[in-house]
């Protein structure tokens, strides 16, 4: 491809055993079909990971792909996807993170890094302006991720670092790869895969530049996108409070993971808990590359035991994971976030597995002597200690480090307390409290129980009505909101029924999954103001201007759908069964806030979703016809 394509133009394939690197040029067809980011990863992992391998063996592949438009002026384009076969779920493992890693990776000359094999001795990689160095990590191994990043950032000024901490080294199945100090590719255990490869860190730095195809047009679209995002009603709240916006309503709806999904909401989770706290303990906003929202905050704990603790934080997921899921205090939740960042461990999975352990302790199944100390929801010190044990696989921590699905098998009736879908711990939202596009997404997500790959672009957090047989959520906005949605005109009325003021969950789930997949391919952020206003029309314009590859909005969405289907094929090839798409039994059996899920109705919503996807309505397997349409019919599932 020519130089002015927006793409860096090359994929770097590194074999750690041999210490050799191969550079592959991108071609236009591959780019059109898989776009970048998660799309490239889907194809790389599908093609490269043999069926049935142990994810922690050297046969697994770790792929880093920067989103296509990362490192330029398109608002929020900053994100990089990391994928491998997940050691936690045995499925397509993947995680997405922003900040500046992608910018540096592209400036170093590569859209993707593929890491194969296993280093003989601990190693870190330096990727700089098209060159790779294989460096001895003996001095870094054993250090936490912050210490590692400190050393590497000092040594290679202006670099970005992806590093694992002790959890990754110790092959904790939900270890994360830390993206700089405060961000991470966190879910599905990518850090354990990196650890299994004896790879401590990847340092990227580059000066090669990114050349858009049509500069003026691209700047125009970037500006247009910015104006669109700024005009979203979600813009100001997200600018001010970031993701903490969701904390208050989800508490109000009893739709939080309180004490391992036993309560809906904790008594002291005040209605205004979250947002007022943001103002109290934070100052300053922090942005990822090219972000106009800057949803992240700088936190300073001003009093109490953790006085003086300073870090980027106050994201809803960690706060709810620790604060609600384990009942920790806000300050201790921040402390726990810090610890997880240093150890390189996924906060959602860790809090999930700890929540399970405490519940089992309360049920008398885990005993004090099993742990060595007592644990309880809200016991900050004990919980932090247990998390430390997990990262270092000490005592019971060694079992819990296997994740809820595996560790539950060690305990009598452990499965009843294991709150996961397909082996991945469920994050902060409880579908019993609020059934929505967002909560169905936990069931249909390629990576398992996770809330970040499906979200209604115009979710209305003011309303929570369960009168629709789990099939619809209330739309609750006026007509201009509907009109502003960048969605095909024939799909829109199917997704949103203006007359009855409802959103169809199955239709909207499928749409938003594809849309988010598109975002994750191009490197755009999925924060509500962006997801609300940015859609295939703007992105097709931007992609064409940036890369010079003519593409229509329909083609973009089809690529997103192709990527989703390919990942589904990967999961099926690894043995995914239709019955895996199920919430924990508790959600169907035990009420929270007077509500529970109806298994039959949920199955019906799922069936509608499968039909919407063009999959077999009973098994959720993509049909021949669908695969042919997507050009995936030669792939084996």
């Amino acid at each position, binding site marked *: 491809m020519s130089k002015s394509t927006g793409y860096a133009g090359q994929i770097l394939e590194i074999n750690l055993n041999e210490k050799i690197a191969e550079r592959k040029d991108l071609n236009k067809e591959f780019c059109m079909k898989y776009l970048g980011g998660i799309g490239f990863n889907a194809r790389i992992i599908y093609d490269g990971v043999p069926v049935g391998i142990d994810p922690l063996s050297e046969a697994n592949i770790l792929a880093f792909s920067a989103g296509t438009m990362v490192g330029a002026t398109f608002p929020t384009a900053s994100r990089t996807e990391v994928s491998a076969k997940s050691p936690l779920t045995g499925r397509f493992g993947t995680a997405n993170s922003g900040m500046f890693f992608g910018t540096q990776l592209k400036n170093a000359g590569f859209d993707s890094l593929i890491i194969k094999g296993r280093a003989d001795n601990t190693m870190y990689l330096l990727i700089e302006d098209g060159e790779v160095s294989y460096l001895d990590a003996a001095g870094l191994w054993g250090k936490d991720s912050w210490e590692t990043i400190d050393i590497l950032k000092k040594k290679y000024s*202006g670099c970005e670092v992806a590093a694992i901490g002790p959890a990754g080294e110790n092959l904790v199945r939900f270890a994360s790869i830390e993206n700089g100090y405060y961000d991470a590719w966190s879910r599905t255990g990518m850090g354990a895969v990196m650890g299994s490869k004896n790879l401590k860190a990847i340092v990227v730095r580059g000066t090669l530049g*990114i050349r858009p195809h049509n500069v003026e047009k691209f700047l125009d679209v970037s500006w247009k996108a910015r104006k669109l995002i700024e005009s979203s009603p979600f813009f100001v709240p997200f600018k001010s409070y970031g993701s903490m916006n969701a904390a208050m309503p989800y508490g109000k709806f009893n739709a939080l993971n309180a004490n391992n999904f036993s309560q809906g909401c904790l008594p002291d989770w005040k209605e205004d808990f979250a947002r007022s706290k943001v103002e109290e303990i934070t100052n*300053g906003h922090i942005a990822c590359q*090219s972000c106009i929202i800057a949803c992240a905050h700088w936190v300073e704990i001003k009093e109490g035991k953790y006085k003086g603790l300073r870090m980027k934080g106050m994201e809803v997921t960690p706060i709810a994971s620790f604060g609600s899921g384990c009942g920790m205090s806000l300050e201790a939740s921040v402390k726990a976030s810090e610890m997880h960042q240093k150890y390189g461990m996924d906060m959602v999975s860790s809090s999930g597995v700890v929540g399970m352990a405490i519940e089992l302790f309360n049920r008398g199944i885990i005993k004090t002597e099993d742990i060595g100390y007592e644990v309880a929801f809200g016991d900050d010190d004990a919980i932090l200690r247990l998390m430390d044990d997990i990262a270092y696989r000490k005592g019971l921590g060694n079992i819990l480090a296997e994740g809820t699905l595996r560790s539950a098998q060690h305990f009598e009736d452990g499965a009843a307390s294991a709150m996961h879908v397909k082996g991945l711990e469920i994050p902060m939202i409880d579908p019993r409290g609020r059934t929505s596009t967002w909560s169905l997404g936990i069931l249909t997500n390629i990576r398992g129980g996770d809330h970040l790959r499906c979200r209604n672009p115009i979710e209305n957090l003011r309303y929570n009505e369960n009168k629709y047989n789990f099939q619809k959520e209330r739309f609750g906005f006026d007509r201009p909101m509907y009109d502003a949605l960048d969605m095909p005109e024939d799909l829109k009325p199917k997704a949103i029924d203006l007359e009855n003021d409802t959103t169809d969950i199955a239709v909207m789930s499928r749409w938003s999954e594809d849309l988010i997949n598109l975002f994750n391919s191009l490197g755009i952020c999925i924060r509500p103001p962006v997801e609300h206003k940015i859609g295939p029309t703007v992105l097709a314009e931007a992609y064409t201007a940036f890369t010079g590859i003519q593409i229509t909005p329909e083609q973009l969405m089809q690529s997103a759908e192709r990527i989703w289907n390919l990942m589904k094929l990967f999961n099926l090839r690894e043995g995914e069964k239709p019955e895996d798409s199920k919430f924990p039994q508790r959600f169907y059996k035990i009420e929270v806030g007077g509500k529970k899920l109806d298994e039959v109705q949920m199955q019906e919503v799922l069936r509608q979703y499968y039909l919407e996807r063009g999959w077999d309505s009973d098994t959720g397997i993509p049909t021949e016809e669908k695969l042919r349409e997507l050009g995936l019919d030669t792939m084996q599932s």
Partner: protein
Amino acid sequence: MNKQIMIDAAKCTGCGLCQVLCSLSKSHQFNPSLARIKIWREETRGVFIPLTCQQCVNPPCVNACLMNVISKDPITGVTVRKTENCIGCRACQIACPFEACSYDHLLNVVVNCDQCGGNPACVNICPFGALQYLPVNEALNTCRDAEAVRRANL
């Protein structure tokens, strides 16, 4: 009246849009390493500081230059360079107290912000008001006002 790019680091979120657009305007590519505005990242302190030429009245870079490349434009007050004479020795870069000289590794010369001839791209794109383009006096006043308001609030 001469204008100046005024920096309010407290408002900077570190998004880097100024850098990518600057490098695009000056070197036709998105490439932070070529930008004439830098963001000094104190990540572990949550502090981001945009650094660019402050158009000093008596610039240390002018004095440090071994090739007499740098001078003050008598009309606009902008610190300008005859880059064709620059030998890339970087003495100006070291001398600058504001870390505001950038090495252009495509041309092997050192460059500084020229305010885009009066319409600075970085200021236009900054989403957070951390960069403003103001007449010199007003810039100083704004600086003082902001300080006064903030102190009054304490």
